[in-house]
């Protein structure tokens, strides 16, 4: 039996992880361990491999070289259902084809917890309602998913992975389509969620300033095999981000507020 919930080993670790897309090397021999209580922002230019990295860390893609371990066990050695109870992945949004209530869609992520004939129990329904509540979506439970706007659909998708109740969350662009207000609401909800013992969140994001404010750590991909990982204020610096994005960025300060902005040409 795997030590799935042994807190002393609770960590996700990449070991000499190499990711390639065609002839390009996205990530070269990346070694790092993500611990509980950390809220990671994965940043980098378009096509740098953020989605590929998250899918690989979730075990959906095989790395070109190296390996990923979760709680000391190689991802390839995890059984699918225990793995789905241990980590949740929110893919970039896909359109729904059929009518369904928001509650039903969110509750689908209880799949790894279903037993017997595969019908949800009261506890599954409660988890779905709690996740909707956490993101301020309680009033949406009976809405038809086909009637939602892009941002609403995105928040429903986030509620769905939260109700999966997996201690490791991997979120691919959870803030896309959200207005500023909801971006901040979602990041605050994620920050609170990650505070519970054993939990880790990795999310990819393009807003460096929101990342600097809410994330504890950052992983910056330069799209050329290089990656910088560490506490967010050590990684999302003007020097490193300018190099990764290929455009000069400067840090401006107003009292205790800081912002990374593109330098004037």
């Amino acid at each position, binding site marked *: 039996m795997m030590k799935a919930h042994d807190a002393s080993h609770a960590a996700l670790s990449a070991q000499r992880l190499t990711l390639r897309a065609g002839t390009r090397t996205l990530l070269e021999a990346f070694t790092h361990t993500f611990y509980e209580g950390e809220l990671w922002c994965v940043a980098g230019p378009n096509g740098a491999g953020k989605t590929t990295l998250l899918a690989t860390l979730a075990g959906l893609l095989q790395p070109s070289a190296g390996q990923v371990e979760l709680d000391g066990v190689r991802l390839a050695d995890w059984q699918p259902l225990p793995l789905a109870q241990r980590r949740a992945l929110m893919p970039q949004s896909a*359109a729904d084809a059929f009518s369904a209530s928001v509650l*039903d*869609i969110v509750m689908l992520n209880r799949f790894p917890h279903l037993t017997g004939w595969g019908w949800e129990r009261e506890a599954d329904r409660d988890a779905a309602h709690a996740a909707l509540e956490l993101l301020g979506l309680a009033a*949406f439970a009976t809405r038809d998913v086909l009637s939602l706007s892009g941002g609403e659909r995105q928040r429903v998708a986030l509620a769905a992975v939260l109700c999966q109740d997996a201690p490791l969350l991997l979120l691919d662009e959870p803030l896309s389509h959200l207005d500023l207000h909801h971006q901040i609401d979602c990041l605050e909800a994620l920050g609170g969620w990650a505070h519970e013992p054993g939990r880790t969140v990795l999310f990819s994001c393009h807003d460096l300033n929101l990342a600097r404010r809410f994330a504890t750590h950052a992983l910056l991909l330069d799209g050329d095999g290089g990656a910088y990982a560490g506490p967010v204020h050590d990684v999302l610096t003007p020097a490193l981000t300018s190099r990764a994005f290929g455009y000069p960025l400067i840090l401006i300060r107003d009292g205790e507020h800081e912002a990374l902005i593109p330098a004037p040409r």
Partner: protein
Amino acid sequence: MNRGSSSTTPTTSTMRVMNAKRAAAIWLALAVVALVVLMASLALGSVALPPGRVLAALMPSSSAHGGSADLTAEIVRTLRLPRALAGFACGALLALAGALLQVLLRNPLAEPYVLGVSGGAATFALVAMIAGGAWWIVDASAFAGAFVSILLVLGLARRELWRGEPQDTSPRLLLTGAVIAAGWGALITLLLNLAPDNRLRGMLFWLTGDLNGGAMPWTALAVLAVALLAIVPAAPRLNVLLRGDAAAQALGVAVVPLRLRVYLVASLAAAAAVTTAGTIGFVGLVVPHMLRLAFGNDQRMLLPAAALGGGVAVMGADLIARTAIAPAQLPVGVITSIIGVPVFLWMLLHRRR
């Protein structure tokens, strides 16, 4: 705070949560309707029989009586019962195949007839008939035709066969299916022109679905049982699959084997239905859609319900087909298409983007 949601809040008509108890109630209700329609199919026809006589005819002892009771038993047992059961089995298979194709392709308009599956089965069957093959060769050809046709649609309509793309709801798939169906149609016309006269009548049977050919229901019923046993336990996984392949895989579903299973069961069901009763259109579209409107899209409920509902639909349509302008009999495929075409167009035009 939720600016976008203040104006209208469209909800589906089925916001009640589905659970095992509610699903069982739906299945029970549909089963009762099926029994009623079955009784009507046995009682009505050129010789109308009271229900008591029908039941008596079904009892094993009834053959002991002489005279008219014997004739009644004969009509019920050898004419009406096989025909009604064949109708039920074909309808159930077609509706199940439709519901499964709709999951596989993530498109509510997918259906064996619309996608040309029935046409493929018919074409292959006609070739076998022209070649003078035995009945089982004709049936095997029909199976092969159904499989090939689904494979063609799947292969042409998406770049990677086993990867569900988010754009699956696009009309591209339907266009591909419709064009393939047109291609089969042309081949069928060609084959009919080439065929010797003495084979024409049997061949025409394939072109309009017809339960009048003395179709025996047992193969179709057996395939129905196998298909349900093979796919109903996977229904919770099919619900997850509808969210897209990446989401399903992240939830612990082995996507590729599941897709393969859905494909095989849908093809088998469609092929068995076409082999038994020719091409009956639109059942796989209308029945799952009506059930979805009424009870939601939970596959755990929908797959068995579609089988029962499809059985009722074709059994009922055949009852209409052979009593509406009696003593003349219409092919059942005419009735289902007359109802199915407007429903399909309505669905196509009212799709939400």
